């Protein structure tokens, strides 16, 4: 294993974080809050550690393979969160380091689960940093590094594959660096578009920025106790639609930009996603109609909540914990689906579910006609058996890991089955709110520090799609030379 290269790449990531921390520093200078010194200290720490790693470790052999890619990704995300938590602690906004770590992991993994009981008491720069981590984590910090650091070799594909969600990674253009750049440009353009539309709807400047960043990364950190509830219906619609848009595979936007409309209209994943969203919204609208004054209001809340869950964002306009059982159950189930592959959303991903469904159908037919030869087609192409196997394996692993986390969290005294189940589901799928004690109006503050650490890992496992962390946590990876 090329340890030196792993360390060197990690060092560069830390340096990148130092640069990114300059943005909230700027915000704190503008608003004159007490975030300036903590951010300065954190930047100094990041510069020192990252600089030391990049300058002292000089890898002779620059080649990396899949294993190193996984390790770099896992290490980078852990260290990013560990350093990113420092400003919260140093500014005493979140006194406990564990809490701050949870909050930062929740930020980078675009979960949006918070331990804060009173969000509105936070200062501007800290609020901004929280939402900024969403934005970075959504498209991926390593993707950003590939896009802007000039001298990275072509084999960084292993790193990107480990970081980007979805069963397979498709390049848009021949060069990885150009692909990463295009993705970030599209991402920035969409974020800016939402920002402008929120501003036009009368949302204050700072609020618009926070919510645009939070929606783009499908994160869900808000700045108000009731999340989006107190904003106008127009703003709620804007955010709901953008949540849905950020749950779509970004390749679609690229295809639209280069004026290739056919594959978009034919995309199975995209249409499955749209149909699921529309159908669930319709069912929930009917179900919650008695609670609201008119159809329009019920539809708005239903559509918003469905999108917040499906895109794994985690904003809310109402306390959906108060909704009837059917709606709550449907929302919890949608948590596991998540958005499309290649989007910023978490969860299992629509494409995996479609492939699973097709595998099941093929297996059933195979039982009835043992000699039949079944070919699974997806997006107009034949899917290789190895992909199907890996999707099934991923699903099994995903469920197993979910069970492990669920059992660990159930040790928490005083929490009921629903709270624990939805807390794990919500963290593992990078959503944010759950039901009952972790509902939209509640927070994760009640969990013991140890369980918070486990939930943080659940979030990281969910964001990085299990394998990178699992591989780096297995001792054999590190013991072998």
């Amino acid at each position: 294993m090329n340890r030196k290269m792993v360390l060197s790449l990690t060092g560069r990531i830390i340096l990148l974080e130092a640069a990114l921390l300059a943005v909230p520093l700027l915000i704190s200078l503008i608003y004159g809050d007490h975030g300036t010194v903590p951010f300065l200290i954190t930047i100094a720490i990041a510069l020192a550690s990252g600089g030391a790693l990049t300058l002292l470790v000089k890898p002779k052999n620059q080649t990396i393979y899949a294993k190193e890619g996984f390790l770099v990704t896992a290490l980078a995300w852990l260290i990013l969160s560990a350093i990113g938590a420092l400003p919260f602690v140093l500014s005493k906004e979140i006194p406990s380091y564990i809490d701050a770590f949870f909050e930062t992991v929740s930020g980078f993994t675009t979960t949006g689960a918070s331990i804060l009981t009173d969000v509105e008491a936070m200062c501007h720069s800290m609020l901004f940093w929280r939402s900024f981590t969403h934005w970075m984590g959504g498209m991926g910090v390593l993707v950003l590094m590939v896009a802007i650091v000039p001298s990275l070799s072509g084999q960084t594909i292993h790193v990107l594959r480990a970081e980007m969600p979805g069963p397979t990674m498709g390049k848009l253009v021949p060069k990885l660096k150009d692909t990463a750049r295009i993705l970030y440009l599209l991402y920035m353009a969409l974020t800016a578009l939402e920002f402008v539309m929120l501003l036009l709807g009368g949302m204050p400047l700072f609020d618009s920025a926070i919510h645009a960043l939070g929606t783009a990364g499908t994160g869900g950190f808000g700045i108000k106790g009731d999340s989006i509830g107190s904003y106008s219906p127009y703003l709620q619609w804007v955010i709901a639609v953008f949540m849905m848009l950020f749950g779509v595979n970004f390749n679609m936007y690229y295809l639209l930009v280069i004026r290739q409309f056919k594959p978009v209209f034919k995309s199975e994943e995209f249409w499955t996603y749209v149909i699921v969203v529309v159908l669930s919204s319709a069912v929930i609208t009917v179900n919650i109609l008695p609670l609201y004054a008119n159809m329009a209001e019920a539809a708005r809340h239903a559509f918003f909540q469905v999108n917040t869950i499906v895109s794994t964002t985690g904003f809310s306009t109402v306390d959906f914990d108060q909704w009837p059982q059917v709606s709550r159950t449907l929302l919890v189930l949608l948590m596991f689906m998540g958005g499309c592959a290649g989007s910023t959303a978490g969860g299992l991903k629509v494409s995996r579910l479609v492939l699973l469904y097709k595998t099941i159908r093929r297996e059933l037919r195979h039982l009835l006609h043992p000699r039949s030869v079944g070919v699974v087609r997806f997006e107009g192409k034949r899917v290789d058996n190895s992909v199907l196997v890996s999707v099934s394996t991923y699903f099994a692993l995903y469920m197993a890991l979910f069970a492990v986390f669920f059992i660990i969290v159930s040790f928490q005294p005083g929490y009921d089955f629903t709270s624990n189940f939805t807390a794990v589901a919500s963290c593992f799928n990078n959503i944010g709110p759950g039901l009952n004690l972790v509902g939209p109006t509640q927070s994760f503050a009640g969990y013991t520090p140890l369980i918070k650490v486990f939930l943080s890992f659940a979030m990281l496992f969910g964001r990085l799609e299990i394998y990178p962390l699992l591989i780096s946590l297995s001792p054999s990876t590190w013991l072998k030379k």
Partner: protein
Amino acid sequence: MNIIVIGCGKIGETLIRSFVKEGHDVVALDNRDTVIQDLTNKYDVMCLCGNGADCLTLQEAGVEKAEMVVAVTGSDEVNMLACFLARRLGAAHTIARIRNPEYNDRSLGFLKEQLGLSMAINPELLAAQDLFHSLKLPAGVKVEYFSRRNFEMIEVKLKEDSVLCGTSLMELRSKHDAKFLVCVVQRGNEVIIPDGSFRLQAGDKIGLTAKPTEMQKLFKSMKLTNKLAKDVMILGGSKTAFYLAKMLIGSGTNVKLIDVDRHVCRNFCDALPALSAVHGDGTQQDLLLEEGLTDQDAFVALTGMDEENILMSFFASSQNVPKVVAKVNREEMASLSERLGLERIISPKEIIANVLLRYARALQSSMGSSIETLYQVMDGKAEALEFAVNGSSSLTGIPLKDLQLKKNILIAGIIRDRKTIIPTGTDQILSGDKVVVISASHRLAALADILK
């Protein structure tokens, strides 16, 4: 540049590697998904699985914006069709590998014209030409020509008993009366541009430049004997063997071919009546000895198996055959057998990569840089480039010793009015010159890039 490579076998992959190194945007097309998967992991290219001779696949690969389409699948017909379609769909330049001898006769020109091909490459023919030239040189020496043969660079591996061992480059110049310059040295896996105090060792592979007229003198003073090969034994009736045999027979050499396939032997005899073909297993040492291996001037191993070629070449060397050449396709095998002491190895895919890289650079130079020719030397670890100097620049009129060159760059030769100057510190570059530069680590696009 946007380049599409159709067919990702041995040659395709070598091409992809060198194109990616050059910074081109490469799309790789192959119909085997395992190959495609492997490529995605290894190189920074876009990979597509599909038939290269299919319009939709080509369009998906972005053929209308491609500056260059290279078709190197195993089938000549597929290559031709793919190139034809690519050209019709808007590709600027198309290159097809056409290696069937039947297409490579007089009809090739017509084919190229009708299909709109910019170039037809035939790896076997190129390899044969390379071999043919090298058989005319002393043993263990490889040569590259620049500037219409006005300038030569030879690669020699120093043996234990070579007179050059242990001397520094400064002493060398005074010791030998031939004017030459050691431009580049490969020691182990490292490529060095040496300075005057550099001492040569046995085992070093050195790149020398000299005037063509002084070459023979240089060979003599280095005690490299140069005997023209009169009797050549070829092992394996491959396409390369056919082309080589044809060229050798044309120049009056006796050629003996050994192949296990009776049918192949018969075909060779049919096409080349002057050739003596032997039907038998060429890996049997007895057979080779019986057929007079020890009396041969050269032994060329051209079977399809790298291992066979390497082993039988070692055997031929042990029987004191003066010139022994092995065809080795796999790069790792080539460097391994070179380390074990095999002096002369040809690799058709490296030759192709060189040709196409040069072509791509030439295409690009019409878009800005001024490279005339480009050669990869020292197993692709260094490059020799020829630039034309037009008008005055920051380099002209200054003695070379006053130029602040980057590290690992050397001006190996200046060609002025078709005469070669092996430069010393006092020489100057003038407008209208051609300059040959050796670079071991930088990729140069223009002559001014050599300055710090």
